[in-house]
């Protein structure tokens, strides 16, 4: 991806901003412009909870090119307390100690350096609490 994409996604990646459908209340992360449930187009911005739990996880031993120097690292699907689910790395932990059900806090971290340009890219990771 090129840099305008990272700029565009700052609200959700840096501030965990989601979109809540004004009609049916379903919360989307990332925000969408059309509700899959009730087909409304009207949304309001809500900030997700930064607390959640690990629904499932893996430890990446063979990474994509942008992450090849960081293996092994844990990635999980986190359900935040609002019920929204996100995929993110589980940081600051021995990868062998990650378990389903662990409570986490979502924090702001550098995620990667973009391949060709080396652009620093930021976002969210989880730490077990």
């Amino acid at each position, binding site marked *: 991806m090129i840099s305008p994409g990272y700029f565009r996604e700052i609200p959700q990646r840096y501030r965990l901003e989601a979109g809540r459908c004004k009609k049916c209340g379903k919360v989307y992360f990332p925000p969408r412009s059309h509700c899959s449930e009730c087909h409304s187009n009207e949304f309001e911005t809500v900030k997700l909870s930064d607390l959640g739990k690990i629904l*499932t996880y*893996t430890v990446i031993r063979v990474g*994509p090119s942008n992450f090849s120097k960081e293996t092994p690292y844990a990635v999980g699907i986190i359900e935040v307390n609002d019920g929204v*689910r996100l*995929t993110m*790395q589980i940081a600051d932990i021995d990868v062998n100690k990650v378990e389903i059900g662990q409570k986490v806090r979502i924090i702001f971290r550098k995620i990667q350096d973009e391949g060709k340009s080396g652009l620093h890219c930021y976002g969210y990771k989880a730490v077990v609490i």
Partner: protein
Amino acid sequence: MKEVAVIGAGMTKFGELWGKSIKDIFVEAALKAINDAGVDHIDSMYVGSMSGGLFVGQEHLGAVMADYLGVTPIPSTRVESACASGGVSFRQAYLEVASGQSEIVLAGGVEKMTDGADVTDVLATAADQDYEVYQGITFPGLYAMIANAHMHQYKTKREQLAAVSVKNHRNGAKNPNAQFRSEISIDNVLNSTLVADPLRLLDCSPVSDGGAAVILCSMDIAKKFTDSPVRVRASAQASDTIALHSRRSLTTLDAVVRAAEKAYKQTGLKPSDINFAEVHDCFSIAEIVVTEDLGFFDKGCGGSGVEEGLTSLETGKIPINTSGGLKSKGHPVGATGVAQIIELYEQLQGKAGARQVKNAHIGMAQNMGGSGASCVIHILEAI
């Protein structure tokens, strides 16, 4: 809608085909299919390919392949649905014949994965780039998360995942077109390198080159070309959220459930009526989840099903992946869905040799894209 038959099939060997280009591979498969069917022309064709652009820097594969196959100016369309591109290619060809728009149509698929592209990165484009891949997940990683969730929820055992790979290698050893014709043991799987916990190297389908093609025509004219055409009984497709984390369940693939419901409804068949099936075992856990979601096993019982031999060629109530599956036969992603149809075609004609399923009358092919965001299912029947 017209009834549709498959009247010919052809494929390359799957594997690391260093000496062959994507064009060579597709043309070889297509010519074999055309010759096998004995047709003197095709009216239209489809080319399933996940990512010619990223793997070899070539898009516009419909026109490219029509040119190199020497069939211009017929319509030729590239079809993409990630790893389900081949199955969707077959479905488009089926719909074109069924609609009466064309009489004889070639459904093909091809992928050239060994020309130097970073395969992990290319395959990851089938997931949500911005909200899955950006965070560092890989395809083995996505299926590993499904595996951990399934093991947690249903007490599926690590050895049961391994049993899928062992069975599929045993079948693939009997398939002359398979990439890996060697049998493996549970211990081999459990001692292979970790890729994404709990999945190890021998839980993962390989990086492969290969092409596959079949010829479809209306049932009205099929007997002109062969005494044993195979009938397409059902063609069904469904989609789901692109991101695994957005799904209703992490252990059920709803696109598979929905496509299967449609396929069973189209035919009036139930899971126990299916004699054998080719399913999308891109990772060992995928076969376990899919055999549950197709209704062959109760939810959570896919692991014990494979462990008890219920899906084996030799003793199974429903042999699964007699071709060797993606694991042993190889997984050139765009070709895979068409190659599944070829296994059905050969089995239903009684031409599967050492892999022949006894009394094979009705077979199913289930092909899916990404972590299950797209799924296409076909049911074929011997007549």
